């Protein structure tokens, strides 16, 4: 049985605890990196990570991109939406099609 985890600064993620998701508050990029590695090796199917935390450890996240599990998904944190999540979707379109033909005008 898999679980869902949320990584990010405490203020952005504490609400998810009530839903039954495991929350992992981190303060520094190193902490986030360690936590991500630990969670990805464990029984976690989905790992949500705040865009702010993800921005610091992009290389680590890219490593898991080609694996079926876990799915690492960026979500906006309390500090606001940086657009990194949408950017990620656009990037996959670029990778697949060659250029962003779907969301270029947005």
């Amino acid at each position, binding site marked *: 049985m898999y679980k869902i985890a949320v990584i990010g600064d405490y203020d952005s993620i504490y609400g998810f605890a009530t*839903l039954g998701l495991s929350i992992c508050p981190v303060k520094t990029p190193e902490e986030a990196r360690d936590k991500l590695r630990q969670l990805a090796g464990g029984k976690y199917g989905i790992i949500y990570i705040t865009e702010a935390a993800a921005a610091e450890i992009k290389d680590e996240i890219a490593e898991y991109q080609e694996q079926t599990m876990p799915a690492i998904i960026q*979500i906006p944190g309390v500090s606001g939406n940086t657009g990194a999540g949408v950017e990620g*979707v656009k990037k*996959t379109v670029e990778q697949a099609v060659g250029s962003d033909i779907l969301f270029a005008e947005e």
Partner: protein
Amino acid sequence: MAATQVNPTRMELTRLKKKRITAIRGHKLLKDKRDELMRQYLDLVRENMEVRKRVEAGILSANKNFVIAKAGMSEAALKTALMAPKQEINLVPGEANVMSVNIPTFEYKTRTADENDIYSYGFAFTSSDLDGAVKSLADILPDMIRLAECEKACQLMAAEIEKTRRRVNALEHVIIPETETNIKYITMKLDENERSTQIRLMKVKDMMLEEAHGYSEK
């Protein structure tokens, strides 16, 4: 002539002809695979974008609610209220196969069936804003799970499409033309050899006739 050295033998010719047939068949299959992957991918990525926008808007408003809730209570009280969650979510992972790309599917089960179990605190000492905040977050959870499914599938499919496209191009522009030039080279070389053998034989016959009977065709 091809860049690589090929032996102009019949055996090589047969091998290359077989290779060409396989390459053409592989090319056709891969092209079909790419097209179908692309079709499914485009549908999926549109949904992905839609769900992502919905989730981001949902999280934004939930965060706002939490800030308001936090303003109405002390930090310690809030932490205590959320310290021991009642609800727990278990993911039942599955795998779907889309054109030989394994994409994960997630089904989730909550530990208790009662949806009110998301409130892990007594209502007496917490602000009512907190209830709303928790509820708003709970409402977007199904979308968040769907987003994880979609986004992961999109990433995996995009990688597969890229790989397939490279293979199609390599076959179309390198392997097939190369094999064809090699085949042409060998056929021409063999024809040439045959012609020269023919001429040699004719010459030898002439010489033998002349020697035996003093007879010349000319």
